[in-house]
């Protein structure tokens, strides 16, 4: 490929609140620049995984290079980097932004600014990106573009009067967006002759090529044969191939130089060596210092994953290992539960990440899983001065050995319309939130800030928020740090036997309530046996709640069912369906879904 003029390159991303049309706009841009014909277009080209398309969220960062012939007659190269769209992946988002020079802010013409709009745009501004707004969904009957434009100027403080008013779905005014990409997003800078300095914003494991490293070249040049050094992990390798991103394919090229976005492969076996945010340099001619902002991301949410069929344990291990090749933030280690047998304690970036991994294991690897209640990392300060990072409630030391415990808190920003402020504050209060501030964004909407314990928001906070605000509240959070807290371990006893997989850590003040709901829920889930089954919730030796599963109801001594055997058989088969997926604990059979029932304890 001929030499590319830096001034004709535009590296950008699109930021938006969920559902404001980020991926659809990306599709339109790709389509309009003729990279794919409409016939080849599959909706949301950049969301590769089935899961991404189904859930309408981007999970992995993706990138694509497109060529645009602008009105000034020049051809421009656009590198569009699609960032993950969820708070679980905030760090990945920040690295993707760091690979760009500008960002398009998409705002829904009806809904206006939401919590993630703010969070994302501030993130982009923090990275010194030039941001220009686009008003999407102007074809909706409820669209109020002018109100949203004013809102953007008032709340965010960026110029918005000439923002393109588009419908990505209907393909209206996309040309304006393309022209503004050229005029409003700066060309990259950097010296192609300087020592190599490239930012890794994602990586992907390929069975044939090894790890494919997605990077933005900030300085210097990389080509086949370059001896690269990953400055944080210290891994080194020899580059085998460099290239750029076609639509859904990798297109090799001679070299990547300063200002360009592309990939290289170097027979690297594990994504652990090529962590997102790390700086790639030339081992033989290294740059003076790495790019700022690298951190090793650590899982925040932990749970036990067990194969429903104990014999599938090795399959689960293989599957987790394979997923980890592509996902450096997934952690797991073997553990054993009395109730569930052999499994793994797994660490995730958040609940969405957990759900994604769980779903991929079930779908792509055909595994039936039992998941235990997710928890966070608690810091247990023991009387002898040791500090334990507790991820599995069963490992909590004896209370006599504990000096005090700490739990992680987040700072949450909730945007909500006026009429629901009361309900949302109640919810935060119930979840042990600490009120920080409230400001009105406009007359009818407010931004509420709370500090909340992470373990109060990982299960169902988002659902509760939506249901109490009739869907109008939006939410974003970031980690704040550890705070000392009165925590206890809640144990569940079924037929007088403690079921380790059901234990969890909870704040003293909510233990009774949680215990009571747990017992109620389990009473619904556990089928009747021949005998009565007490279900108890206990803190230490003290039982704080109790329910009973009554003994099996006797069958009616029916008249013989005539010749219609099929009907009777169907009845028995229905009964049999319900009996699948049971776990034996003592002499009680517990359905596997009971282990997940703790996830759904909100009263609504």
């Amino acid at each position, binding site marked *: 490929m001929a030499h590319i003029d830096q001034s004709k390159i535009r590296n950008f991303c699109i930021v938006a609140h969920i559902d404001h049309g980020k991926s659809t706009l990306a599709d339109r841009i790709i389509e309009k620049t003729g990279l794919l014909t409409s016939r080849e277009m599959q909706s949301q080209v950049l969301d590769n995984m089935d899961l991404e398309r189904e859930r309408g969220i981007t999970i992995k960062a993706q990138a694509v290079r497109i060529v645009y012939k602008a009105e000034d007659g020049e051809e421009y190269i656009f590198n569009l980097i699609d960032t993950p769209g969820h708070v679980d992946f905030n760090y990945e988002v920040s690295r993707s932004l760091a690979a760009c020079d500008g960002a398009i802010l998409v705002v829904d013409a009806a809904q206006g600014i939401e919590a993630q709009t703010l969070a994302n745009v501030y993130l982009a501004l923090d990275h010194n990106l030039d941001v220009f707004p686009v008003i999407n969904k102007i074809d909706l009957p409820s669209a109020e573009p002018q109100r949203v434009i004013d809102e953007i100027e008032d709340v965010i403080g960026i110029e918005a009067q000439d923002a393109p008013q588009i419908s990505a779905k209907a393909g209206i005014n996309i040309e304006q967006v393309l022209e503004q990409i050229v005029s409003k997003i700066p060309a990259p800078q950097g010296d192609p002759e300087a020592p190599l300095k490239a930012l890794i914003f994602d990586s992907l494991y390929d069975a044939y090529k090894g790890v494919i490293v997605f990077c933005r070249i900030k300085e210097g040049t990389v080509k086949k044969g370059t001896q690269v050094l990953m400055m944080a992990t210290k891994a080194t390798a020899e580059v085998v191939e460099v290239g750029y991103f076609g639509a859904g394919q990798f297109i090799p090229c001679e070299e990547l130089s300063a200002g360009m976005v592309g990939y290289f492969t170097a027979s690297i076996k594990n994504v652990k060596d090529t962590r997102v945010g790390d700086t790639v340099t030339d081992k033989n001619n290294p740059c003076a210092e790495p790019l700022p902002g690298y951190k090793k991301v650590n899982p925040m949410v932990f749970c036990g994953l067990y194969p429903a069929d104990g014999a599938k344990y090795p399959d689960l291990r293989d599957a987790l290992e394979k997923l980890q090749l592509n996902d450096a933030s997934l952690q797991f280690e073997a553990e054993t539960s009395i109730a569930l047998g052999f499994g793994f304690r797994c660490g995730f970036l958040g609940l969405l990440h957990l759900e994604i991994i769980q779903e991929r294991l079930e779908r792509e690897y055909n595994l039936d899983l039992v998941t235990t209640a997710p928890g966070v990392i608690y810091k247990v300060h023991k009387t002898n001065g040791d500090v334990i990072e507790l991820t599995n409630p069963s490992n909590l030391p004896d209370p006599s050995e504990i000096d005090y415990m700490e739990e992680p808190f987040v700072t949450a920003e909730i945007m909500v319309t006026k009429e629901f402020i009361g309900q949302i504050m109640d919810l935060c209060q119930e979840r042990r939130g600490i009120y920080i501030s409230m400001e009105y964004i406009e007359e009818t909407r407010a931004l509420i800030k709370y500090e909340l314990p992470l373990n109060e928001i990982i299960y169902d906070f988002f659902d509760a928020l939506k249901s109490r605000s009739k869907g109008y509240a939006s939410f974003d959070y970031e980690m704040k740090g550890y705070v000392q807290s009165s925590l206890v371990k809640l144990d569940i006893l079924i037929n007088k036997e403690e079921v380790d997989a059901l234990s969890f850590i909870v704040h003293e003040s909510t233990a009774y309530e949680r215990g009571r709901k747990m017992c109620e829920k389990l009473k619904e889930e556990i089928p009747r046996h*021949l005998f009565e089954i007490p279900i108890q919730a206990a803190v230490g030796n003290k039982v704080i709640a109790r329910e009973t599963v009554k003994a*099996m*109801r*006797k*069958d*009616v*001594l*029916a*008249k*013989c*069912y*005539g*010749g*219609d*055997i*099929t009907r*009777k*058989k169907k*009845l*028995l*088969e229905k*009964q*049999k369906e319900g*009996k*699948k997926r049971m776990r034996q604990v003592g002499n009680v059979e517990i359905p596997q879904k009971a282990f997940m029932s703790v996830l759904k304890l909100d009263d609504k």
Partner: protein
Amino acid sequence: MISKKLGLYIHIPFCIRKCGYCDFLSFTASDQVKEQYVQQLIRELQVRSAAFKDYFLDTVFLGGGTPSVLEGRQIAEIMEAVQGNFKLERNAEITMEMNPGTVNEEKLIAYRKAGINRISFGVQSMQNKELELLGRIHTVEDFLQNYKAARKAGFSNINMDLMSALPNQTLKDVKKNLTEAAKLSPEHLSCYGLMIEEDTPFYQVYEEQELRRQAGEERQEDALPTEQSEREMYQWISDFLEEQGYVHYEISNYAKPGMECKHNLKYWEQKEYLGAGLGAASFVGDIRWSNLRTMEEYLQADIEQEPEKLVEEREVVNEISAIEEFMFLGLRTIQGISKTEFYQSFGKEYMQVYQTVHHKMISQGLLEEEGDRVRLTKQGIDVSNYVMGEFMQVL
């Protein structure tokens, strides 16, 4: 040539009035519809019989509904069609269900003449207050009169259906019913519990009651007996009838020795039977099928040209299904299943297939083993669906 045996079930879906607890396929109908039905039924018997030329009928069962709402003449026509199209064994058991409120001496004589030799009376209770509560159209007096008339007409094999666990019923009521019944010395007694079926008027009333009871309200008037008293009734009936010389041969059936209902035994022993009429079920070879359940469709079907149009559901019983049926049908009988028969039927050892479930059920006291036989214990009968369900999960 080996003669194969066949049972024939004929469904008469008519009633004078639908009872509040009944979820069987039955309804009231005009005389015209009844007559059309009889003629269509006869056509079905003619067409179906072609496939059974090398079979001998050893049982016939006219069930319902209330077959006795039909005139003596109509029953005679149906029976002629049976005799004319099938090879009926001379001593075949030919049962007809009768509502004591729909027959009289004259009708009984006509039925006997038509070849019926066994009556199953839907008595349900020997007390008028209970009959009223159930919405039955007959009184105890009607029944007694017709029972006598039946004997006089030459019926030497009579069954009485009796129901227990009725609303407000006490053990004393049950004792009274059974004592009165036993005095008549019927050859066979079917004693079953009232089952509250969905989509019946009773369901609405008693489901609501049950919900209120679970919510901790006091027992109400007309409440169903508790599980415990229901089982006491069952146990008392079983003991009493055995004392009276009856054999308890199936969960809810009792007979004088040798007088077991041969037709019903076919169901539990996976023998072949053909069902004719609305919604009737058949099992021949390895196929189970059942007829259309809508009267209009049944009457309009062109049986001669397209007999298959009569069939609504069809299922091939594969080996796994056959084994499962063997178990859950066999376990309904008091003597249970035979391990030898299991092996003869499937070429597999019972113990090899069911070892785990067998031991689990034995250790829970729900199953017992005696020589070749494996059967439900008393506790097992209490939760028979659970036990049968366990046997369904294995293969």
